[in-house]
């Protein structure tokens, strides 16, 4: 299977070997003088040379929750968007929703719809970015390609210049819509309690209607590409089904009243590994259902289902470990709310053997289904006459004290929770981000990969690549997770013998 993996999905087998060679040389050097990796994995072997324990470490903490204290609540959407420049709109929107709750103010119809339009545009755009720019090079360009091609330029070379232009052009236009309302694409400014800062000029509407229609075509076309390039490859399908990337955990996602996927609004629903509903709750009650566990070896916290209690990195029907993100959302919901997305969802479960799907690598597919859903919601919203209503905001009148808000970020559920004084200055901020929810499952994937590849003290050369794949499938955002680091994470893997001595160090920048 290693061969298959290396060919089909390996982001750089050759490079990994080189890295290994380099690391091997470096192993003898006092590690203290070397640079610490952004993400770090320590693997320990038992006396038989089998993997005893693998630690995924995140080495930084930025402390947004603390330095938001004293800041005016209305600044939170802009400040917290700086947690992550890859998904700033998600933080912005979760924060804005927390402000609605804080001030007990219901957004106006147009305010709500503009938020929806911006948010679904963002989801489509961000998913497209991941599919074509960040994740795409792995499975579109292919692992054999020279590193200099393993980027968007390479993707363009693979799918054709016309198609490449279409990707670039569509993303540009989607981002222009976000900029129209938000001022900026990265770190937009539209969110305020009770609505948004800016109305939609009716003159702009035809342009955005065209964009929504094109966006839907684009999403459906992306599904075609996925079918053709990925599903057309038996290796990839095999890989999806492979054991190393399968974990039976719970799944959480936001659902509407009919338990359909919703990115912007609704209750959070958790299903177990058999697809049974474990709980469903409004975000304001998140503390009753979710909790964070601290391990002494990482700055990242591990979120789990509170009712089940933390019992380690385990899977199965009783596990408190759950996942979020495109796959989790599709698993946690009963349906998609739009026709094309629903059809794609049915195809997804049919091919992958029914709900819930536990194959981490299926996340890429789920992401494409969500692109279709996001585009369909855009089409709905720009068709709504209320979208051009100038009444985009309701001025809050309540004295603030506490509020929570959540959205489904591209990478999963994102929760913002604030307490303030009567002037609306933050006294407490608590943020739980997608990678926090996923942290335990990611750690399990890493350990699974290690255990699968290290036997009798022999370290398989492809280890690093496999670990990276396990990692990248989650699209983990350690920037979000520690509120410190950006989307894609250099890794360092160290392997220790039973006495704790360092056997080997593998570095992946």
């Amino acid at each position, binding site marked *: 299977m290693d061969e298959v993996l290396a060919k089909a999905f390996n982001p*750089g087998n050759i*490079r990994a070997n*080189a890295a290994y060679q*380099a690391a091997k040389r470096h192993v003898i050097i006092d590690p203290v003088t070397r*640079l*610490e990796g952004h993400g770090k994995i*320590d693997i320990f072997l038992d006396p038989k040379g089998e993997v005893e324990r693998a*630690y995924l470490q995140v080495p930084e*903490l*930025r*402390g947004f929750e*603390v*330095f*938001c204290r*004293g*800041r*005016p609540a*209305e*600044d939170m959407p*802009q*400040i917290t968007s*700086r*947690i992550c*420049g*890859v998904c*700033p709109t998600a933080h912005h929107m979760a924060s804005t929703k927390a402000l609605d709750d804080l001030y007990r103010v219901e957004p106006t119809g147009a305010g709500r719809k503009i938020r929806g339009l911006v948010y679904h545009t963002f989801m489509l755009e961000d998913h497209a970015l991941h599919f074509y*720019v960040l994740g795409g090079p792995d499975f579109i360009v292919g692992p054999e390609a020279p590193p200099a091609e393993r*980027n*968007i*330029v390479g993707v363009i070379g693979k799918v054709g210049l016309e198609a490449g232009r279409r990707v*670039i052009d569509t993303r*540009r236009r989607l981002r222009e819509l976000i900029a129209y309302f*938000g*001022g*900026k*694409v*990265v*770190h937009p400014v*539209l969110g305020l*309690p*009770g609505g948004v*800062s800016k109305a939609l000029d009716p003159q702009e509407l035809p342009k955005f209607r065209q964009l929504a229609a094109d966006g839907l075509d684009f999403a459906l076309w992306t599904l075609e590409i996925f079918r053709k390039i990925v599903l057309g490859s038996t290796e990839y399908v095999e890989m999806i089904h492979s054991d190393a990337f399968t974990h039976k955990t719970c799944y959480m996602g936001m659902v509407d009243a009919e338990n359909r996927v919703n990115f912007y609004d609704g209750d959070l629903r958790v299903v177990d590994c058999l697809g049974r509903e474990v709980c469903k709750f409004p975000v304001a009650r998140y*503390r009753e259902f979710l*909790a964070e*566990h*601290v391990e*002494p*070896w990482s700055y990242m*916290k591990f979120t789990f289902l*509170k009712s089940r209690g933390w019992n380690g990195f385990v899977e199965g029907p009783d596990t408190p470990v759950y996942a979020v993100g495109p796959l989790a959302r599709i698993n946690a919901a009963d349906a998609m709310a739009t026709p094309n997305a629903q059809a794609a969802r049915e195809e997804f479960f049919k091919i992958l053997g029914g709900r819930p799907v536990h194959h981490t690598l299926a996340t890429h597919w789920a992401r494409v289904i969500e692109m279709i859903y996001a585009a369909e919601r855009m089409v709905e919203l720009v068709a709504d006459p209320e979208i051009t209503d100038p009444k985009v905001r309701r*001025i809050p009148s309540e004295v603030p004290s506490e509020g929570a808000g959540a959205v489904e970020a591209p990478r999963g559920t994102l929760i913002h929770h604030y307490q303030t004084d009567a002037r609306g200055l933050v006294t407490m901020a*608590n943020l739980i981000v997608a990678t926090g929810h996923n942290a335990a499952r990611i750690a399990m994937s890493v350990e699974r990969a290690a255990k699968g590849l290290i036997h009798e003290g022999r370290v398989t050369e492809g280890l690093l690549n496999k670990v990276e794949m396990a990692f990248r499938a989650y699209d983990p955002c350690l*920037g979000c997770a520690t509120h*410190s680091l*950006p*989307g894609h994470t250099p890794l360092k893997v160290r392997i220790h013998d039973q*006495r*704790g001595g360092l056997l080997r160090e593998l*570095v992946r*920048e």
Partner: protein
Amino acid sequence: MPKPKVAFYWCASCGGCEETVVDLAEDILGVVEKLDIVLWPVAMDFKYADVEAMEDGAIFATLLNGAIRSTEQEQMARLLRRKSRVLVAYGSCACMGGIPSLANGFAREEILKFNYEDAPSVVNGPRTRPQLSFEEEGRKTHLPEQSRVVRSLDQVVDVDYFIPGCPPTPLITKKALAALLGDAPPPKGSVLAPDTALCEECPRKVGKPADLSFAQFRRPHQALLDPEKCLLAQGVVCLGPATRGGCGAQCPAGNMPCTGCFGPTSRVRDQGAKILSSLCANLEAKEAPDIDRVLEGIPDPVGTFYRYGMAKSILRRRVDLNGG
């Protein structure tokens, strides 16, 4: 002639700067053709080892974003400084500390305690903390130590140029690269953005009254804002007059005030002090209690005036924090 080698790198940042570079790459494939990108972790597969193996000064220019917040980041900055003929602080965090430097208002211990003990969702009976060195059944792991102080890039290494913004716009980045690659590079230490405040390019400048004085300040959520009128004229604190232009007044275009991400002009040492001076001087009130009442409309001067630049402010940091 070989193409100039260019590196992008991040330190303590959100990745938004990288997004701009992605936008730039999409926008102008031509740039990629003119440049040889040797390090760009977010989108391209190159290795640290490759950089280290280079001759000193082999990289033409490194655009580094993010604040400096750990030993690792500091050393990476030093390495890239050594390898690059031109080191550019890219984005507000590298230029001025950015939003992460708001952490300079708090002690490291406060941050750790909240995150691992006091946060309402934490369940941590034994008060476990991430350990710099942790041992479990003979297995030892290490975590790097976070700095107490968040720093801008030039507070750690010598910086040749600054490209401000949170994030910088693709346009300003393109212009800066063109300037760097041009025949007459700008003088060392230059901020590669206009040296005139944002108002110059803000469409709301037209019709801003010349006799503006403040009877009150309104926080953005407290009032419906006219999308055309100067925000200061609506009593909303806008940092435009104290902030470099170059972004095209994006936030005012979103009907929200400028929050100052491009930093001050070259003639100002402390952006916060200057906007404070200007806003306050233009109050109407004369008696201290009346003045204070109006100024209640600015409930968080530090967070408002040093949103992106506490590290580079004159004081740099809350001065009474324990632990030096």
